[in-house]
């Protein structure tokens, strides 16, 4: 079972992704932002990077080129929209994943025994 993270995505024109808030599986082995299935990626193609700047991933099966687009993400119930990258393999189906570009900006608690993942809020003292 995956740990998952609540995310809401917007394309480069800040239009809400029709799927709304989704629970994206967390993948700490993926250094990118949000990976999407091919069909879902189309919504974000109005903010795509030139092909020469698409991200090439090193994988256990060899290099993999990902189509890459600018997007915005909101996590949990937060109000802040931050810029991120959404990606889909140039060849292949793709899948929904939240990678380290998303994780490194926030605290996420993974509780294995209870299968719960929580966003940690900074607390003022």
């Amino acid at each position, binding site marked *: 079972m995956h740990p998952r993270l609540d995310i809401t995505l917007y394309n*480069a024109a800040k239009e809400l992704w029709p799927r709304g808030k989704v629970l994206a599986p967390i*993948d700490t082995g993926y*250094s990118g932002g949000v990976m999407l299935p091919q069909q879902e990626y189309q919504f974000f*193609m109005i903010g*795509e990077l030139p092909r020469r700047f698409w*991200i090439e*991933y*090193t994988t256990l099966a060899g290099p993999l080129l990902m189509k890459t*687009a600018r997007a915005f993400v909101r996590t949990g119930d937060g109000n802040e929209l931050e810029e991120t990258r959404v990606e889909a393999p140039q060849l292949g189906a793709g899948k929904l994943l939240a990678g380290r570009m998303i994780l490194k900006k926030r605290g996420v608690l993974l509780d294995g025994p209870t299968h719960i993942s929580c966003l940690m809020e900074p607390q003022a003292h």
Partner: protein
Amino acid sequence: MHALTLVIKNIDERTLRELKAQAARRGLTLAQVFEEAASAWLSRNDQAAAVTETDADNEFYESNMAQLEAEHSGSYLVIASGRFIGAYESLETAGKAIKALSPRPAHAILTKAGADSQQVGEWLGGSLEQ
């Protein structure tokens, strides 16, 4: 969602028989099969349009990259329908420009001149999937 009744005339009898058999094997109604087929067909057309536009936008960018980067360094460049739309100071204004395009393109290039570059990442394949 409001469901409508659709009557199809002159469909090939053998095709319909095979369709019914396949639907039964997958536990679907004929209506579900037609909906699935219609979605796939519509999606295929969208994808084809996007691929064509992607090629046109990238060809324009590659042909004009040096000039665009020199003239608009640090700005967000928007290319759509195979032409230069404009250079914008922020991602927000570039996004608004894309949103205002009519007709709405299926694809646009949005790049920050002088800042975007080829990136290399790693995907070690579902480290938490087990």
